[in-house]
């Protein structure tokens, strides 16, 4: 057996994965509507990347390589048929959005950084809504029950929070650009 070859490869892989895991997950979540599907895809992606890691050339762009593999997995994903998707997604749509993400790669990673800061500035009531929607993974109707609001009101609030975050991120980026 080779002395430390496989161990070294695994260590390199895990280190790169650690560094870029967030970028990979965001990419998959941006292209896949169903959260459970996205989680499945991310896990199989990590495994496929490991299996193909021998073909990854050290020094080349890990995120770009990971995205290529992820896109392939997304387009070929077979969902367990017992879970009905809410929306069916057109492969041409996925490819168009993926190409746009590739084109804006730099800007998007800057936006990721800025979002952290913008989240910290959210007022308490908006934080609560973000936690219910994203951390607890509750849908609009459940949040409406819990907060004793109508669904329309919850959606409006949530939409407002996302818009505020989006504006905050854009403002931070243009401020740092000037």
């Amino acid at each position, binding site marked *: *057996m*080779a002395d430390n*070859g496989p161990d070294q490869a*695994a260590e390199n892989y895990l280190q790169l*994965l650690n560094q870029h895991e*967030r970028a990979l*997950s*965001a990419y998959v*979540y*941006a292209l896949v509507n169903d959260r459970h599907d*996205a*989680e*499945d895809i991310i*896990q*199989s992606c990590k*495994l*496929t990347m*490991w299996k*193909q890691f*021998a*073909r990854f050339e050290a020094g080349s762009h890990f995120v770009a390589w990971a995205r290529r593999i992820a896109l*392939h997995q997304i387009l*070929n994903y*077979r969902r*367990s*048929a*017992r879970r009905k998707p*809410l*929306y*069916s997604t*057109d492969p041409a749509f996925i490819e*168009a*959005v993926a190409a*746009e993400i590739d084109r804006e790669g730099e800007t*998007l990673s800057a*936006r990721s950084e800025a*979002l952290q800061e913008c989240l*910290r*500035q*959210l*007022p*308490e*009531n908006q*934080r*609560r809504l*973000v*936690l*219910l*929607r*994203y*951390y*607890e*993974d509750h849908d*609009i109707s459940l949040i409406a029950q819990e907060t004793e609001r109508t669904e329309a009101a919850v*959606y409006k609030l*949530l939409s407002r929070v*996302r818009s505020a*975050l*989006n504006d905050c991120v*854009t403002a931070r980026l243009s401020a740092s650009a000037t």
Partner: protein
Amino acid sequence: MNHREYIDRSFDGQLSPGEWDALQAAVIADPDLRREYVERRWVHALLESGSEALPSLFAGASPAPAARAARATSRPLLRLSAAAAVVFFCATLFLVLDRRTDTTVATLIEAQDCRWAGSDLPTVEGAGLAPGTLALMEGMATIRFKSGATVTLEAPGVLVVESAMKCRLIEGSVVADVPESAHGFTIDTPKMEVIDLGTRFGVTTTPLGNSNVFVFEGEVKVKENASPVAKHLFAGHSLVGATDPQPDQDQEVRRSEPLPSPGDDWTPISTAVGRGGDTYIRRGDAHGPTGGHPLLMVKHTDLADNNVRRALLTFDRSTLGSARIRDARLALKMESSGLGFSSLVPDSRFAIYGITAGSPVFRDEVSLLWKNAGPLGDASLSESMFRRLATFEIRKGSPNGLIETRSDALTEFLQSHPDEIVSLLIVRETGESDKQGLVHAFASKEHPTSPAPTLWIQTAPLE
């Protein structure tokens, strides 16, 4: 409503399927809309992918003072509700944590040589598992569900633990052992659902979602998505799903990894060189001659006579001329055979036999069969024809690495071998506990990406 308004609504499932289709078409057609979609979607995607970190992110920073002050001065009622929100938030956080400790549905009872690919569940032996995903890069992990069912996941594989009675196999192989208490235990795969009726069985799923089921004992019920009628499978039977149209659709250019050279004075001789060759033979010859196959399959079993397989490697060392041989090693690249379960085979020992000069030569790999391979298939290999030169071990569940074997006996055999053609026979000496045990495989000279079996020979310069 215009398409811009659709964008945000799509994140919460607030569009009708028709509206969603209209949005997709518009995004494909309009570059400006596409940019806006990606910009807004990215925020949503970051919130989803980073959701686990949100509580600690919020805990580490106090809310914007301006917003707080505004509330405190002009809207006292809201201030109250903000305080209530904090209490509520703490309560939910507590509930979440509590729910996580309380909803353990299984225990990871054994993790043998495991390397994990960022699973969202704990991966130390003895850890309690709540519903979640386990992704195994290397090794073998055994999970005992609270129902009593035991499932062994073989690397590489992804398994989703759903409840004490259910798991989902996204990719890879599992062997399940289900006691009476857990009858009805279900393994879900993308194309079928396998429901236990008191048994021991195995399931494999390929990256494209096709599954095979093997029943070792008892009975299982299989519901294929494509068919409304459930099938019953009994011990010794299997159900093989549709085969993959293409095993690997990856668009990337495949390239072979060259073997690492041990040093300048070493010369590689692969089975692809000159008059060399490689093939394997299978007792019973169920599928005809096996020459030209990308994999060299090797297996030993006392349980199913016709599954025994041995590999024959032939090297042409004429390129070495008369240089004196100082050392030698054999390099084989392990590959997945896609056949059998590694849980059913212990750590395995293999032996490399040299075929002595003057023995019959088996050169025509295209037509070589077990039945015309004569002594190559003998249960005990005769000492006059076969020299046991070296052994190597492959541990249970180990990754598909490169296996290099050297021994003084191998070097001496090559030094004293008078012919330019050298033949080696690879035999597995370890048997299995069930006839669905793993078939080991090595890349042959026909393999599209992996190196062929290679004999590395170190020569001394002529003086």
